[in-house]
Each structure stands twice: as C-alpha cells, then as structure tokens.
C-alpha cells in the first residue's frame, strides 16, 4: 500500500475525516455502554451487600 493510495486524488482531506469520525463515534458508543453497564453492576452489588 503506497502513499498514492492514501492521497485519493486529493479527496483524502474529506474521506479520512469521515471514516475517522465514524469510527470514533462507534467507539464512543461502545465505551459509554460498557462503562454505564459496569457502573450499574457495581452499584447493584453494593446495594445487595448493604441489603444483606
């Protein structure tokens, strides 16, 4: 894969940000979901312990 293929006729300044932004958004959704899930699980565990 040479450098020419990354220049994409000069359209790389539009193409690459599109892909990077899309992947960042998907990554953000994934990390946010996992973080919230872990947070909720920890809270449930604490509450269950204090209930016992």
């Amino acid at each position: 894969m040479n450098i020419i293929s990354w220049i994409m006729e000069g359209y790389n300044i539009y193409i690459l940000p599109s892909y990077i932004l899309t992947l960042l958004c998907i990554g953000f959704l994934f990390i946010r979901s996992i973080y919230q899930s872990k947070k909720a699980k920890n809270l449930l565990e604490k509450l269950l312990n204090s209930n016992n």
Partner: protein
Amino acid sequence: MFDWLANPNRFKKITNKLEPLLMVISLLFIISGLYFSLFDSPKDYQQGDAVRIMYVHVPSAWLASFLYLSLAVSCIFYLVWKHPLADLISSSIAPIGALFSILTLITGSLWGKPMWGTWWVWDARLTSMLILFFFYLGFILLHNAFERKIDGSKSASVLAIIGLINLPIIKFSVDWWHTLHQPSSILKFDGPSIDNQMLIPLSFMIIGFGLFSLYLIIINVKTKLIEKKCEALILKLNLKEIL
C-alpha cells in the same frame, strides 16, 4: 413474540448468548467492509475517490432512519400495551440513533463540499435528516425532563410517534422535490442501479453497523434493567431506615 420477549429474565437469558456473537460478527463485517471500501472498491467515473465517503454515509443514514422506526414502534408498544421493556428499548435506541443522524449530516457535508461546492444546502433530504436529528434530541430531552419518570416516558413516546411522519419525507424527498441530493440508487422498484463492486462493501458496512447497533442496544437495555433493580433496592433500603 413481543409478549414472550417482554419478560426481563427471558430477555436477559436470550441476549446473554446473543451478545458475544453479535459483537464478533459485527466487527468482522465492519473490518472487512472498511478494507473493501477504502482499498478494494473502484472509483466512481464522476466522483472519483470521493465516492468512498458513501460507505460510511449511507449506512449511517439508513440506520438513523431504521432506528427511529424501531424507536417509534417500541413507543407504540409502550403507550398502547404498556410493555415493561418497550420504554427501556426506546430510550436505549435514542442516543445511538441521534449519533448516526449527526454522523449522516457531517459525512454528507464532507462529501458535499468537494462534489457540490458547499458544506450545506437547505435541500429537502438534508433538511428532513436534520429534523430527524432534532426529533431524536427532543425525545432524549423530554424523556429526562420530568421528575416522575413515567411522565417523561409518555410525552417522549408521543413525540416519537408524531416524528414518524418524517420518515417517508426523508425517503421520498428526492422523488417529490427537485433536490440537489441524488435520487435513491439501492432501494428502487427496478432493483439497485449501483455496481456490485460498490454494493458489496456497502452491504458489509450496513450489516456491520446494524449488528453493532443491535449489540449496543442490548447492552443498554440490560444496563437499564439493572438500574431499575437498583432503584427498587434503594427504595427498600430507605423504607427500612424509616421503619
């Protein structure tokens, strides 16, 4: 079917098995879709390499619309049949759909600048997609605006159902009005007018994004189920302290 799935325990049992499978399959589709769309698909004879933006723009647009349809259907289930999971499903879909609709607008702008010479035009397709994003935002804000959660859920559900009118406008705007946005080239009565070399990577991305969204929705619904359990436990603990 929905009745059967509406049982939270049964939902958890099924999705526990489905979750890792969805994650792996969606990532495989996305990674291979990325490879095909960036390196293996041909240039367009008019747009050149800029056509590659389509492989992230179109899946985002389709998902933004499809997720809104799913959100509105679960709102109907919530309002009419009072299914316990329906509200959790719609509130889990909303942030994902909102992000895909804003992605559609941004990637569309990034394609519009080199092709149309402008980042934005008040074209029917672009404007209706912006309205879809506002409906998502409205749903999220309304859902969290009330002190009593049930009030928020009901009013947000009504808004979501009203917003359904926007979906056919998005789809047919390019046929009903003379727009700068090109007409549909995949979902057509006489079959897709796009070459298979482009259709295959596009399908890979659509399937990958779709499955990944489903995976995220499942995680979010399960998180909300745990949060409900936590709220019930906090109430129980508070009652114990009072008594």
